[in-house]
């Protein structure tokens, strides 16, 4: 325990990588699934200890108030997803959709992905952050294509091409940031170190910063899943294994969002640069409105919730773009709630699809009657994700709408309209799936329910009661974000 606390950063960064190497050599899938869970749990404990013991700033390592939220959330969802994944893959093996040799690869890639995401969050260097996000993208690409069906390969290819273009644009933006920094902070590594950049950004050339931000916003925005560069997201969610859909929606989108927030902070600290807010608000609203209408005609259940992720990332980017203490607070809360709720929904959806043997919404009926736990978990998750009380997203969406009404009434109308359209679409689909005469297989689902409970319980509590220390902490970060 003390070792974890003393070397928490090293554990968070290197334990996933070491585990990935170990998992690549273990043939027994039961053992490797257990090792996967144990390692993810230890990483989560180490991340928690970051709250109490902050390591010293280094040239490459940065733990501050902003990224610690992301790290804790990330490692928590990674841990619960690994527990869910253990039961999920056992079923996939039983139904011969995956072979044992695939699983070795799958587990190693899972840990590599966690390591890369932790590195992206903890890096104090914008070049290192870029490399880490690229590695995270690559590992998810190969996992999306793991079923080797034509649809899965097509999804992986689309994700590959769009993701590569996104990270290429982000790299060009990173180079431009370095060009802007070089005359002020000098050549070499200093020009890419975040703490140096943020200290001296006021003296950078604003024109270069503006151009850099456009590229970074488009590049990392592709990875956040913002329209019009979102096309990879629904396919990647629908065709890959469900634990990967949960990790994509719950974690990887947040990591890209974190990169956007970092560069937004840079822009805001330079008096001559354009305000980053309007660009973020436009992209956010566009994604929200687009995804809300796309929710109507979905026939595939995982694709449905993938569009819902685009919608919520749009809301979060809009909130952060609007800025101000209240909107930032709401954005952070919404992000945390969305991660927890969306991954819980994917846990439920994955089991439903396994039991029913289909992902078609039309073939899934009466879940609350045939599988009470799964059915009600799905109902609770969807009720929370559309922003109804008592879910925590009711509070965050309420706060976002209130501050939009105060700051930009015309945009608030678009926001409310988009949320209402998405609300109606999801409730409509949920009603068919959860209630009515059960259809298809009614065999009991054999899976762990703990991950869903661990996710949905805090979400439902958060709508009623937020612990004061958490509120104070989020308020502090919201103030830092401007």
């Amino acid at each position, binding site marked *: 325990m003390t070792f974890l606390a003393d070397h928490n950063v090293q554990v968070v960064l290197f334990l996933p990588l070491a585990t990935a190497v170990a998992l690549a050599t273990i043939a027994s899938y039961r053992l490797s699934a257990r090792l996967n869970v144990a390692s993810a749990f230890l990483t989560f404990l180490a991340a928690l200890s970051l709250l109490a013991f902050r390591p010293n700033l280094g040239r490459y390592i940065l733990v501050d108030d902003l990224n610690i939220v992301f790290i804790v959330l990330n490692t928590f969802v990674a841990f619960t997803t690994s527990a869910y994944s253990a039961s999920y893959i056992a079923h996939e093996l039983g139904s011969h959709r995956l072979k044992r040799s695939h699983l070795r690869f799958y587990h190693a890639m899972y840990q590599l992905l966690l390591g890369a995401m932790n590195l992206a969050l903890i890096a104090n260097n914008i070049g290192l952050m870029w*490399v880490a996000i690229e590695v995270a993208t690559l590992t998810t690409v190969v996992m999306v294509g793991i079923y080797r069906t034509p649809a899965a390969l097509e999804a992986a*290819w689309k994700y590959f091409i769009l993701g590569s273009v996104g990270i290429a644009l982000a790299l060009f933006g990173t*180079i431009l940031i370095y060009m802007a920094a070089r005359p002020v902070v000098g050549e070499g590594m200093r020009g890419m170190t975040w703490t140096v950049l943020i200290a001296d950004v006021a003296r950078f050339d604003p*024109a270069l910063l503006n151009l850099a931000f456009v590229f970074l916003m488009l590049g990392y925005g592709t990875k956040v899943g913002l329209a019009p560069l979102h096309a990879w997201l629904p396919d990647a969610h629908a065709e890959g294994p469900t634990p990967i859909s949960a990790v994509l929606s719950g974690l990887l989108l947040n990591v890209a969002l974190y990169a956007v927030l970092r560069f937004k902070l840079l822009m805001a600290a330079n008096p001559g640069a354009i305000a980053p807010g309007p660009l973020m608000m436009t992209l956010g609203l566009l994604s929200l409105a687009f995804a809300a209408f796309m929710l109507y005609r979905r026939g595939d259940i995982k*694709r449905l919730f993938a569009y819902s992720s685009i919608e919520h990332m749009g809301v979060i980017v809009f909130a952060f773009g609007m800025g101000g203490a209240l909107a930032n607070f709401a954005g952070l809360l919404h992000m945390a709630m969305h991660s927890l709720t969306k991954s819980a929904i994917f846990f439920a959806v994955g089991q439903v699809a396994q039991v029913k043997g289909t992902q078609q919404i039309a073939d899934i009926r009466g879940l609350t009657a045939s599988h009470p736990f799964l059915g009600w978990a799905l109902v609770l998750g969807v009720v929370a994700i559309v922003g109804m009380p008592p879910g925590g997203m009711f509070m965050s969406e309420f706060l976002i709408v209130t501050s939009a009404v105060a700051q930009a009434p015309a945009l608030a109308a678009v926001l409310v309209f988009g949320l209402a359209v998405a609300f109606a679409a999801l409730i409509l689909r949920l009603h068919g799936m959860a209630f009515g005469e059960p259809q298809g297989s009614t065999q009991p689902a054999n899976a762990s329910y703990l991950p869903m409970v661990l996710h949905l319980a805090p979400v439902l509590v958060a709508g009623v009661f937020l612990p004061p220390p958490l509120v104070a902490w989020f308020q502090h970060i919201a103030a830092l974000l401007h």
Partner: protein
Amino acid sequence: MDRLYFDIAHLLAGGLVLTSFMLLYQDRLYALLNTYALQALVLALAVGWQAHIQHAAHLYITAAIAVIFKALVIPFALHRMVAQLGVHREVESVVSLVPTMLAGIALVALSMVVMLRVTEGADPLAREDLAFALSVILLGLLMMVTRSNAVSQVVGFMSLENGLILAAAAAKGMPLVVEISVAFSVLIALIVIGIFLFRIRERFDTVDLQALDDFRGERR
């Protein structure tokens, strides 16, 4: 002497843009791959020249990667793959040649206007190179959207990436250039292996929307 340094760097970066245009009008896959190899060679010269001017030894590694990996290994592997997989030897374009070339010229003009105006304060060498690099990136993107088969989309992406490496090399003293070029090489190698192992269909568009909906499980 400085003037000569500048002119040679300018010439090589301009050569990269020229090869990007050459990639745009190739209509045979083998010719496309050969042109890509030529572009990688020009990139290696441009990066090597930057290494010489900046006295930055690590850039020679990037140049060496460009020669060995991009100019030799990748084109050779793709040649073999085209032969083995029996891919169509023609490059299938969505948009015909003349509009594509006109769009390409417009993109180069755009990047010149944007970059030269924005970077007035920066040193002239990096400035010109960044403008050329942005042109190569945009031309690569143009190629990716106007082509419909996987191999030429990959070539489009690789030429886009050449533009990025040029930009990174031109930003004087930029750290991590070697690491980034290695990371990109891994990415490209994976794409190429991906096409080969997964036998990815060579065409990604289909006129049969019914089939596409069926494919995605969206038909009702």
